């Protein structure tokens, strides 16, 4: 059953409009609608707040402020610096200040604009480097040093230093943030929430309402996209809806308008880098020093683990013997940045790729050659800066395969020849690799639970702590159960994630959804199988080890019985036909003070080759061809995994090219709708896209030897950025390093071209 491309469990519902998202659920009678009143100042004390006009607005039932929160006014995931509603102090434009509840959605939204707030303005810090200069951080800076980078740098025959900026990225889940809260008897609350982390929503709501966790039930059937944006930042909306529902004892729905969603919620962290690198004449890196300053925004949220992952991915696929990596989480008066697919990993890795690219041009070599001589070794040169040994390295063979399948070298020569004869239009080509660590960087998050019910008619229900956001988690987990019990996938149904079923779950994040929940479901199904095996042996003799569950039957060499019949008999024998299952990832350890240990169970690998054409007069560009080769281990569902690879590549490309976040000088996000913020569309995809999964099996005991696939392929988008840089470099005959920051918008491309000294 492994490596079967079963359709997504919801495919028929998705294409017919019958898949229910939170806003599609039939509403309970008496449902009210909430809207958020937002700060218009980036940093100020609220001198006074006149809400009379809001209260008087048509249809308004209640207007609530911080003082109406019965419990703790905070929804921060780690550090408690995230007020649900601002209490006197506002720290960014868009911060929630009050919430209004009305009879209709439009009435609530209209009313929310009518507040008169008098601000006592404070100085606002809007840029990460300004924050660093002012030593304004949300958490202490971190630093990882190995070897003697300073000394090695000083003695290097070649040095290169400079700066780089890489922008942030809006998650832009098509289904905006939404929570719908229904009060139940005895002070209990049922929260329907579009979230990647139902347990954290349960905790946040309970804290806000001063309840035990067992009074709050959070349910998530599916999300219309999450991408990290609904990991911690669905909490403020769950809390606000719950506070209103509690106050009025009526069902309250809070569904965000797109602009409000973008104004309030955090994005992918942008990074500013300051680097210094030493290398020999072959291009081998002798020492590297980098300072990364990231925009945390006004609060910590997940910025510390994001920065940690950036530190742990600066090496990407390369051995760095002597290295100094520092990271600063700058506190700025902007949205609090949060998780976004890759979680700092892409931001760490792109920096070293930029440096490799620099080395190649300084030495007049092909960047691919520089990459290869710096790759981690298999038996030596294989310890990461944070002390983990890379034990499953396949980057050499993976690179060799895509190098050949993409005709890299021939196309490289053809492109250089083309560029000699084409003065305006220039082509570029790049091959970039990736290595991505799998597991939460916090050891205790790496646990999961599941419940498997086998009903007397042989149908099976599986529930687990993970959430479905389109990545096919429920499909894969159902495949695992169907495999263990040898029944058709069609008879296994995955149910909505529900905090009253599996308790104390982790976020569906860090690409670990299938690894963790698949293993937990397998564990539950194996327990049931064991009980059925014992019954089989009791009835028919033989050994448990000889029993096979396949094709809806259970058999050994001499006897066969249908799965359904065995289940019926088990029920009559009073055998428990349902089970819990649990899993914790083995071998992990992490010291957050020294930034060393084994944070990752294993690594996923991949590489891509992109070819672009740029117009040097306008900065416009087009992706002509892309080849993607990705390691998903022994994929449980290749069609779903390849969908993740394609989608992540396109999303990564968007981050590094068209998606640009801009704030006004007063700190207001100016790009808060699809009219001003450009994510890739169908016409941005290459006509020639070749996608393949690398033939591999996880070296470690992962679920069916598969590998996590959610985040790693986002780094495949790097090759587009570096192909653009390659095309720009051709203008000066590849003798200079273009100063190209990300996103490589036409403006950035033109600016990089202008910055070159023409030969």
């Amino acid at each position: 059953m492994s490596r079967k491309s079963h359709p997504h469990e919801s495919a028929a519902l998705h294409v017919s409009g019958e898949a229910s998202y939170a806003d599609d659920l039939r509403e309970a009678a008496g449902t009210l609608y909430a809207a958020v009143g937002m700060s218009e100042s980036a940093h100020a004390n609220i001198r006074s707040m006149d809400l009379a006009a809001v209260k008087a607005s048509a249809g308004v039932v209640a207007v609530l402020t911080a003082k109406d929160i019965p419990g703790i006014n905070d929804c921060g995931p780690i550090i408690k610096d995230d007020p649900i509603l601002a209490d006197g102090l506002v720290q960014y434009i868009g911060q929630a200040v009050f919430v209004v509840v009305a009879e209709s959605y439009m009435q609530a939204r209209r009313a929310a604009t009518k507040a008169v707030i008098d601000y006592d303005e404070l100085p606002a810090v809007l840029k990460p480097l300004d924050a660093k200069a002012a030593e304004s951080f949300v958490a202490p800076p971190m630093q990882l040093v190995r070897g003697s980078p300073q000394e090695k740098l000083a003695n290097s025959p070649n040095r290169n230093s400079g700066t780089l900026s890489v922008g942030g990225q809006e998650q832009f889940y098509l289904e905006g943030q939404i929570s719908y809260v229904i009060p139940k008897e005895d002070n209990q609350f049922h929260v329907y929430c579009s979230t990647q982390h139902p347990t954290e929503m349960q905790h946040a709501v309970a804290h806000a309402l001063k309840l035990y966790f067992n009074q709050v039930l959070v349910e998530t059937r599916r999300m219309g996209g999450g991408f990290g944006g609904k990991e911690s930042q669905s909490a403020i909306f769950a809390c606000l809806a719950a506070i209103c529902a509690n106050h009025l004892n009526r069902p309250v729905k809070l569904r965000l308008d797109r602009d409000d969603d973008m104004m309030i919620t955090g994005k992918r962290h942008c990074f500013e880098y300051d680097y210094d690198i030493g290398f020999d004449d072959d291009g081998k890196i002798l020492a590297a020093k980098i300072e990364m300053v990231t925009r945390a925004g006004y609060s910590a949220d997940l910025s510390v683990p994001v920065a940690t992952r950036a530190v742990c991915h600066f090496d990407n696929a390369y051995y760095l013997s002597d290295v100094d990596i520092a990271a600063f989480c700058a506190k700025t008066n902007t949205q609090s940045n949060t998780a976004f697919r890759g979680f700092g990993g892409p931001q760490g890795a792109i920096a070293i790729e930029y440096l490799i690219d620099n080395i190649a041009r300084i030495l007049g070599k092909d960047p691919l050659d520089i990459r290869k001589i710096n790759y981690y070794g298999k038996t030596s040169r294989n310890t990461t800066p944070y002390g983990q040994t890379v034990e499953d390295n396949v980057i050499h063979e993976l690179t060799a395969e895509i190098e050949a399948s993409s005709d890299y070298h021939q196309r490289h020569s053809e492109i250089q020849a083309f560029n000699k004869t084409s003065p305006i239009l220039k082509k570029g080509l790049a091959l970039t690799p990736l290595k991505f660590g799998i597991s939460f960087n916090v050891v205790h998050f790496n646990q999961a639970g599941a419940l498997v019910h086998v009903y007397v008619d042989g149908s099976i229900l599986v529930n687990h702590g993970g959430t479905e956001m389109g990545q096919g988690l429920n499909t894969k987990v159902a495949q695992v159960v169907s495999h263990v019990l040898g029944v058709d996938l069609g008879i296994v149904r995955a149910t909505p994630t529900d905090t009253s079923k599996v308790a104390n779950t982790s976020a569906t994040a860090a690409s670990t959804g299938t690894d963790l929940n698949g293993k937990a479901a397998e564990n539950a199904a194996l327990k049931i199988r064991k009980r059925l095996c014992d019954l089989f042996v009791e009835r028919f003799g033989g050994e448990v080890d000889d029993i096979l569950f396949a094709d809806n039957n259970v058999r050994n060499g001499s006897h066969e019985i249908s799965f359904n019949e065995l289940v019926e008999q088990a029920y009559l024998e009073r055998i428990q036909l349902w089970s819990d299952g649990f899993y914790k990832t083995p071998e992990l350890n992490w010291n957050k003070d020294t930034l060393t240990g084994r944070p990752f169970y294993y690594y996923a690998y991949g590489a891509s080759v992109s070819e672009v054409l740029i117009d040097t007069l306008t900065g416009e560009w087009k992706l002509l061809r892309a080849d993607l080769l990705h390691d998903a281990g022994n994929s449980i569902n290749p069609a779903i995994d390849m969908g993740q690879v394609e989608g992540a590549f396109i999303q990564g490309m968007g981050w590094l090219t068209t998606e640009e976040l801009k704030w006004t000088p007063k700190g207001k996000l100016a790009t808060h709708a699809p009219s001003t913020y450009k994510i890739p569309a169908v016409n941005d995809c290459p006509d020639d896209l070749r996608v393949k999964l690398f033939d591999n099996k996880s070296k470690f005991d992962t679920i069916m030897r598969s590998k996590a696939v959610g985040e790693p392929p986002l780094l495949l988008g790097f090759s587009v950025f570096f192909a653009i840089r390659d095309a720009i470099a051709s203008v000066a005959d590849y003798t200079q390093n273009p100063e190209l920051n990300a996103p490589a918008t036409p403006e950035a491309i033109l600016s990089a071209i202008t910055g070159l000294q023409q030969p």
Partner: protein
Amino acid sequence: MKLNVNGKDHDVDVEADMPLLWVLRDEIGLTGTKFGCGIAQCGACTVHVDGQSVRSCSHPVGQVNGKVTTIEGIGSPDVMSKVQEAWIEHQTPQCGYCQSGQIMSATALLTFNPDPTDEDIDRAMAGNICRCGAYPRIRAAIHATAKSMKEA
């Protein structure tokens, strides 16, 4: 006012400036059409009026002069249209949220152009964004539908 949706007449008591999307979702109870951005820039709310694609989030119901078709009128899980079948065959949806709109735009495209090139698809579908990045499969599914329509 009267509104014909998926072949059925509805009498709805709403203001003429209410966006069609809200009438479909909140008044008639057809939730297959989705809210994405509210400014006709993402395509999640695409429906047909007399076979032509319309962004229902920004289209006042009072200006609807024709028969409305929503995703529910295109097919159901039991009886799917060729486009919907191709969508499943190519495993197109990930999160699924934009897919109603994608399928409405693709259906309209194929009605007016039964054999579209990649360029035709880009032109017709560029206004339907998909954050999961299912575009390669959207293209493939449209080509496959065109092929199966030819064979039928």
